């Protein structure tokens, strides 16, 4: 049988991956969740028809969401993860003994269950006693918080559908309020390449710049995501991501990684000219 999964990257561009087996398919209260077995990418988690992650390249995405901030402030103790029900971000955070609390706000309980069953290498991290999972809307969770976290990681899917509210001015504003005075906010920042997503990059950047004094964007290469070229946001009340990097301290921790390294850290904030211009337009 010749079964192919199509991930539409734009209305006229798609990525096709041959499927060996459909392992799971169900509609949750929030979204439609599928798990596919493929030869090239291993297992793929698909939500509402879009690839969320693949076993082959998820490490790039998750390492970039976590270690950049940790190298700037290795003393981070309290972390809030918005989204992240797959456990990938938490797996990376668990590499730091110094972190005391990891709160995960994942609206969809089914997503957590599915990942624990089919992607245990990531999701088993969610069972650790440092980790507390809250199944509610991230926008609601953040509303009442004040001065509670050192780091907030926004690991949310697309700026449309269930996660829409996580890409708004009000949300970034309340993240600012929920962070300590030297807090850092990291967010997945979409891709600058295709037109519609480039527009989203601008909108997000504009709103974050209005909410935080220090805002920088960095990049990574994730082959299964649209265009493969992905951006991340670093926003902070006190630290500059390059001037304040604690290179020696972080290297002394001897954290095992496959993508991130402090020498890479210094390079990923150097963006292509067209991306720089895209961002400068809205600053």
């Amino acid at each position, binding site marked *: 049988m010749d079964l192919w999964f199509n991930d539409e990257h734009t209305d006229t561009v798609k990525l096709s991956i041959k499927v060996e087996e459909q392992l799971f398919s169900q509609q949750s209260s929030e979204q439609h969740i599928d798990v596919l077995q493929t030869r090239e990418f291993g297992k793929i988690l698909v939500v509402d028809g879009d690839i969320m992650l693949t076993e082959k390249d998820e490490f790039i995405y998750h390492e970039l969401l976590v270690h950049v901030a940790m190298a700037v402030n290795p003393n981070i103790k309290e972390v809030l993860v918005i989204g992240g029900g797959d456990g990938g971000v938490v797996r990376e955070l668990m590499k730091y003994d110094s972190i005391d609390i990891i709160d995960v706000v994942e609206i969809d309980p089914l997503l957590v269950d599915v990942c624990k069953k089919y992607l245990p290498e990531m999701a088993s991290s969610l069972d650790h006693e440092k980790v507390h999972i809250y199944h509610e809307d991230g926008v609601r969770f*953040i509303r009442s918080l004040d001065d509670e976290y050192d780091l907030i990681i926004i690991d949310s899917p697309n700026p449309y559908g269930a996660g829409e*509210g996580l890409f*708004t001015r009000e949300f970034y504003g309340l993240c600012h309020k929920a962070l300590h005075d030297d807090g850092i906010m990291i967010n997945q920042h979409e891709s600058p390449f295709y037109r519609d997503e480039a527009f989203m990059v601008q909108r997000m950047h504009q709103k974050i710049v209005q909410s935080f004094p220090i805002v920088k964007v960095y990049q990574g290469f994730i082959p299964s995501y649209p265009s493969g070229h992905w951006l991340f946001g670093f926003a902070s009340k006190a630290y500059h991501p390059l001037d304040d990097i604690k290179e020696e301290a972080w290297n002394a921790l001897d954290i095992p990684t496959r993508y991130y390294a402090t020498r890479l850290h210094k390079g990923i904030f150097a963006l292509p000219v067209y991306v720089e211009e895209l961002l400068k337009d809205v600053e």
Partner: protein
Amino acid sequence: MNQSKAPIYEALEKFRKMRIVPFDVPGHKRGRGNPELVELLGEKCVGIDVNSMKPLDNLCHPVSVIKEAEELAADAFGAYYAFLMVGGTTSAVQTMILSCCKQGDKIILPRNVHRSAINALVLCGAIPVYVNPKIDHELGISLGMEIEDVKSAIEKNPDAKAILVNNPTYYGICSALEDIVKIGHKHGMKVLVDEAHGTHFYFGKNMPITAMKAKADMASVSMHKSGGSLTQSSFLLIGENMNKGYVRQIINLTQTTSASYLLLSSLDISRRNLALRGQEAFDRVEYLASYARNEINRIGGYYAFGPELINKNSIYDFDVTKLSINTLDIGLAGIEVYDILRDEYDIQIEFGDLGNILAYISVGDRKQDIERLVTALADIKRRYSKDRTGLMSNEYINPKVIMSPQDSFYAQKESLPIQETVGKVCSEFVMCYPPGIPILAPGELITEEIIDYITYAKDKGCSITGPVDPYINELNVIKGREE
């Protein structure tokens, strides 16, 4: 009756399948003559933009599918008859007044009516007898009419022909409708209800009483508000003491003879939807509004008011689907919060006045959008909250009526700079839109207090409409008349 039928919609479907060759208007001929319009609206939409014809009936004189649709609507709303209206609820309100009042007749009404009601008085020459609505000074909103005030207006004006009731108000405040109807009928007056914001009362559970249930004579329902039909479409409902043929004649005085089938079919389909699934839809709206009220009141500073206001008189009942929020305690005028929400948070709400904002909640809302609204309000408080000194709340200004709306509208007038108009008689409307409730109506005395109010509202960013001068630097007043 079988509420799962939708006769206009079904006739249009049948008509489309017949592939009739059009040698009649509209000239775009199913869109073929205007490709850009098709690009914008879609083929389905332009395909049913057709003219009245035998198989599709005629709104000016319905005998087949439109008549059936009107009978089904009457049945769904518990009315003696229902008219499909295509000129907005404005046309329904005007028809109510024109059906009951002639030149010189008196009509009892609260002053905080929509401009459409006073416009009707300009048209027909009826004389308004205003009942001052009660005011909640804390919130700065007008409430319903108190029953004692209605009684005294009737005693002083036993010759009045009709009473108009605003029920519910924009903010969801209801008057003692049943009692007002009883007193009005006892004195031989017709009772008309502007029910623009109350379509859902007919279908939701535990809702305030409807005009038809309270035995009112006529009611205007904005189907396009909570009923889900297209903008500009509406129902006029009548009770058994009204002459259906005469009301139709009055409607035809001002109504178009080319009624849009987009509007008519949207009324037909929305009525069916409400009759079949209205209750569950409004259960959801009620849940969303209550949830939002609780969450907003948890933020602190804002007051999202609800049924706790009920006092069984000026607030006889409260529409729990309304989400009205007083903003004065965070130090911002409602209109300022309204502007910040749109400009900085990409959230458009229904309106903001001096002390309150109103977010319109409907069956089209998603929980996640409610979360956004609440969170944005929390963030606005974080960024902008300040001391409330210097903020004015909406005070109801008791109008001094010098001339009838019609006489003053058509009188000789002159345009004066607004600061020089104190003591003159205004010949035009001045209002903030929305909500479109006049600060000044034609024939009313201009006072210092009114000028201060207009200046303050302009300054805070309210859109002021009505006068001939779009910038409201000048007002039209009756020439040579000084009080």
